[in-house]
C-alpha cells in the first residue's frame, strides 16, 4: 500500500557531458509501493537518469531523496545501502555457478554462503513466486528465470526500490505476463519499482504512474487509467523548438533509388523485412517513421549492401544494385549517416582527418590509386571543419575528444562530400545539441534543393514531418501507411506506428 513518504524524489537533476546535456531539470516522484514507468525514445536521457539513481554517475545539479532522506550516492554500493537496486538489460550472472552462488556472490556477509543463504533464497522465491531452486546451475535457466534471479539478487541485498531497465525486451508475451504478476507481488509487499520501457502497451498494463522524458528532461506525467497510447506517443516524440520548416517541394521526376518487393530473412527463415517497395526521386526526402526495432536498421543495412535481400530488387538510378556490397555502393555516390556514430561512423582514436577518409578510402581527395592522399584528405578535412562548423582544436584531434554534436557534424560533412546522389540518414540528429541539430537540418535541406535523394529514418516525428516530402510508416518489417507531411499530424503517425488502433 502506498505510504505517506515517497520512495524516491528526484528534483532538478542535471548532468552534462562535454558538449552534451544528458539530463536537465529532471523531476521524478516514485510513490512508495507503486510501479512507476519511465518512458521515452532512445537518447531521451533515461539511461543517464537511472545511472544517477543507481550511483554510477553523479548529478551536476539537483537532489535525490530516498524515503524522506536526502542522499548523495557515490557508487552502486551506496545506492544498495540506501535501498536502491538495479536489474540491467544485460544480465550479470555467472553461468557456471549455481543460483545460490550467484546470489551470494559479493554479498557473502549478509547471510553467509550456506544454509542460511539457502533459506533466505527460498523465502524470497516463495514470497514473490520466483520459482528459483538454489542449487541449479544458472546455465540451465531460461531467460525469464535468469531475470527473476536478477530481481531476487537485488531483493536479497535489501533493496526496496528496484530499477528495471527494459525488462520485457528479452521476454516473450507469456513471460511478460508472468513478470508483471511478480511485479504486483513486489508492490504488495511495499516495494517500489521503476520500470523503464518504450513499449506503451506494457506500460499502460503495469504502471501506477508514468513519467515521460524527451531530450534529456521530464516533459510530463500521465495517469495510466486515463492516458491513451496516442497521448503517450505524442508526449514522447513531442514538438519542441526548433522544428524544421517544410519548404516547397524540389522533387524531380528522376528516380534515384527504388526498392521492389525487398524481403530479408534471417538464418532461421524469419522475415525481418517483408515485401518493401519504395521509390525516392532526385530532390526528394523520404521519411521512415516507426517505433524502434520494427526493421529500420535492417532496411538501412540492406540498402547499404551490408545485408543482401532474400528476394526483391534494388535499383540505384537505372543500375541494379541488389547484390552490390557497401564499397561499390559508396563509390557510386551513396552517403551514409549511421544510426550509431560511435560504432559505425567513426574511428574514435583516429584523428579527424583519418576519419574523413573512412568510407571514402577509394575516392579523391582521400586516395590516389592505391595510395592514401594524406595532403588531400587533410585539406578537405579543414574544409569540412570550417563549412560544417565542427568545433575542434584541430584536424589532428582524435574524434573521441569531440562532443556528440561536433562528431555528427563531421560525419554529415564527410557524407555530403564527393557529390553524393543518395543519402541514407539514420537518426541524423540523435543525441546532438540543439544548435547542431538546426545546422544538420539546414545541410539536408540544402542538399535536397541541389537534387540529392534522401532516405531519412528518425524517431523524432517533428523532424520527419519537417524534412520529408513523403512519410512511410514501418511496422514489423512492413510498410503500413504512406502519409503526406503537410497534412499528417503526429497523432496520425503515432497511431499508424503502434498498429492502427486508436486506444
Amino acid at each position: 500500500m502506498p505510504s505517506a513518504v515517497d520512495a524516491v524524489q528526484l528534483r532538478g537533476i542535471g548532468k552534462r557531458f562535454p558538449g552534451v546535456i544528458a539530463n536537465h531539470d529532471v523531476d521524478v516522484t516514485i510513490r512508495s509501493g507503486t510501479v512507476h514507468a519511465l518512458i521515452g525514445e532512445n537518447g531521451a536521457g533515461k539511461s543517464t537518469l537511472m545511472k544517477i539513481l543507481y550511483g554510477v554517475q553523479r548529478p551536476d545539479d539537483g537532489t535525490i531523496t530516498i524515503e524522506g532522506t536526502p542522499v548523495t550516492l557515490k557508487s552502486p554500493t551506496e545506492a544498495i545501502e540506501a535501498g536502491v537496486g538495479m536489474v540491467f538489460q544485460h544480465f550479470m550472472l555467472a553461468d557456471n555457478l549455481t543460483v545460490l552462488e550467484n546470489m551470494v556472490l559479493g554479498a557473502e556477509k549478509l547471510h553467509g554462503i550456506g544454509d542460511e543463504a539457502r533459506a533466505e533464497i527460498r523465502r524470497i522465491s516463495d514470497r514473490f513466486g520466483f520459482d528459483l531452486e538454489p542449487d541449479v546451475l544458472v546455465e540451465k535457466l531460461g531467460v525469464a528465470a535468469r531475470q527473476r534471479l536478477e530481481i531476487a539478487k537485488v531483493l536479497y541485498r535489501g533493496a526496496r526500490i528496484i530499477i528495471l531497465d527494459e525488462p520485457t525486451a528479452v521476454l516473450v508475451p507469456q513471460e511478460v505476463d508472468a513478470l508483471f504478476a511478480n511485479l504486483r507481488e513486489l508492490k504488495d509487499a511495499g516495494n517500489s519499482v521503476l520500470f523503464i520501457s518504450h513499449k506503451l502497451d506494457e506500460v499502460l498494463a503495469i504502471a501506477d504512474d508514468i513519467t515521460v522524458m524527451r531530450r534529456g528532461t521530464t516533459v510530463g506525467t500521465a495517469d495510466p487509467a486515463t492516458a491513451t497510447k496516442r497521448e503517450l506517443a505524442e508526449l514522447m516524440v513531442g514538438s519542441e523548438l526548433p522544428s524544421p520548416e517544410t519548404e516547397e517541394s524540389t522533387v524531380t521526376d528522376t528516380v534515384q533509388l527504388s526498392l521492389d518487393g525487398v524481403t530479408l530473412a534471417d538464418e532461421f527463415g524469419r522475415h525481418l523485412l517483408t515485401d518493401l517497395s519504395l521509390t525516392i526521386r532526385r530532390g526528394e526526402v523520404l521519411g521512415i517513421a516507426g517505433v524502434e526495432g520494427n526493421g529500420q536498421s535492417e532496411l538501412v543495412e540492406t540498402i547499404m549492401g551490408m545485408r543482401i535481400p532474400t528476394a526483391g530488387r534494388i535499383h540505384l538510378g537505372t543500375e541494379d544494385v541488389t547484390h552490390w556490397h557497401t564499397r561499390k555502393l559508396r563509390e557510386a555516390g551513396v552517403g551514409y549517416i549511421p544510426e550509431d556514430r560511435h560504432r559505425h561512423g567513426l574511428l574514435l582514436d583516429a584523428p579527424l582527418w583519418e576519419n574523413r577518409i573512412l568510407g571514402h578510402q577509394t575516392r579523391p581527395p582521400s586516395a590516389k590509386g592505391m595510395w592514401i592522399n594524406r595532403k588531400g584528405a587533410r585539406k578537405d578535412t579543414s574544409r569540412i571543419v570550417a563549412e560544417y562548423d565542427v568545433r575542434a582544436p584541430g584536424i589532428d584531434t582524435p574524434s573521441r575528444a569531440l562532443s556528440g554534436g561536433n562528431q555528427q557534424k563531421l560525419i554529415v560533412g564527410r557524407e555530403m562530400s564527393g557529390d553524393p546522389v543518395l543519402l541514407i540518414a539514420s537518426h541524423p540528429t540523435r543525441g546532438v545539441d540543439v544548435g547542431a541539430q538546426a545546422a544538420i537540418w539546414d545541410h539536408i535541406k540544402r542538399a535536397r534543393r541541389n537534387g540529392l535523394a534522401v532516405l531519412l529514418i528518425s524517431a523524432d516525428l517533428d523532424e520527419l514531418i519537417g524534412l520529408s516530402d513523403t512519410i512511410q510508416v514501418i511496422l514489423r518489417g512492413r510498410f503500413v501507411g504512406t502519409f503526406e507531411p503537410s497534412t499528417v499530424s503526429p497523432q496520425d503517425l503515432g497511431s499508424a506506428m503502434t498498429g492502427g488502433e486508436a486506444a
Partner: protein
Amino acid sequence: MRTLTVKGVGLAVLAPAIAVVLSILVTTLVIAAVGSSPGEFWSTMFEVPKPRLRVDIVNQTAMIYIAAVAAAIGFRMGLFNIGLEGQYTIASFAAASFAGAAYLGGFANVIASLAVAMAVGAAWSGIAGILKTTRGVSEVISTIMLNAIAVTLVGYFLNNYGVKEGNSVHTKNLEPGTTLGGFAPFEDRDGEIWALTIVAVLVGVGFWVLLNKTRFGFDLRASGQSETAALASGINPKRMILVSMMLSGAVAGLIWMPALFGGARNYGTSFQVGLGFLGIAVALLGRNRPVGMLFGALLFAFLSVKSNDLTFGTDVSPSIVQITQGVAVLAVVVTYEVVRRWRTRLEQRAVSRELAGAAL
C-alpha cells in the same frame, strides 16, 4: 597544438621507460631472492659486449625484428597470429630444401628461395585465415595447432628425405655459389653481419609505408580499430582477415632467412627456434610501431646474447633474462593502458578548454 605534440611524444616514451625500470627492479629482486648477487648480474649484463657478441646482437635483432613485424601486421588488424613459430619453421624448411636443390644459380637462387619462404609462410597462415572466415574458428586456437603440425611435418620430411650426417639430419647444403657473404666489421674471427639482415630493414620500411601510405594499410588499421565502422565504410571483413593473415605469414616466412644464407647453409640442428614467440613479445613491447619494435628487438637481442656471458662470469642462470623480458612486456602493456587513459583525459580537457567561451 605544438605543446600537445611535445607532450604526446613525452607520454609515448614514458610508458616504455617505466616498463624497463620495472623489469630491472623485478629481476634484481628475483636474483636477490635466490641468493645470488644482483650487482654481479647487472655489471656483467651492462658490460660493453665483445665484438663477436656485437655482431651476434645485430643478426639476432634483424631476425627478431622481422618476426615482430609479422606479428604486428596481425595485431594492427585485431588478429592474434600466435602461429609465427610454425609458419617460419615450415617456410624455412621449404626454402632451405629449395635452395639446396639448386635449381637456379647464384643470386637468382636466393631471390627464388625467399619467394618460396614467403609463399609457404602465407599458405600456412592462410589455413588459419580460411578456417576463421569460413568456419569462425578463432585464429589463436588454429595457429597454435598449426604450430605443432608444422614442427611434426618438418620432422617427418627431414627424417625421410634429409641428408644424414652422423647423428643429425639436415637439408642439402647450399652450393657455395648461392650463399651470401656478409660484412665483417671487426676481425674475421668475430663473425659477419649477414647480408640478408637487409631484409629486416626492407620489411620495416615496407610495413611503415603499407600502414601509413596505402589504402590497404588504412583498411587494415580501420578494421583493427573498429570492426563495425570498417564494415560500414565498405571494407569486406573476411577478405581483410584472409589477406592480412597471409601477409603476416609471408613476412614470418622470412624470419630465419638471414641465418640460412648467412651462417647456417642448411635446415638442421642450426635452426633457431623461438623467434616467433620473441617476435610477438617485441611487437607488444614496441606497440606495433616500426620504430618502437626496432628498439624492442634490439633490447631483446641484447639481453639474449649478453646472457651467455652469465655462464662464465656469475652463478646466475642465463634463463633469468627471460624474466626480465617477460616483465618488460607485461609492464609495457599495463603502463601503456594507464598512459593512454591519462592522455585521453588530457585531450578531452584540451578540447573543452579550446571551446570554452564558444557556445555549444
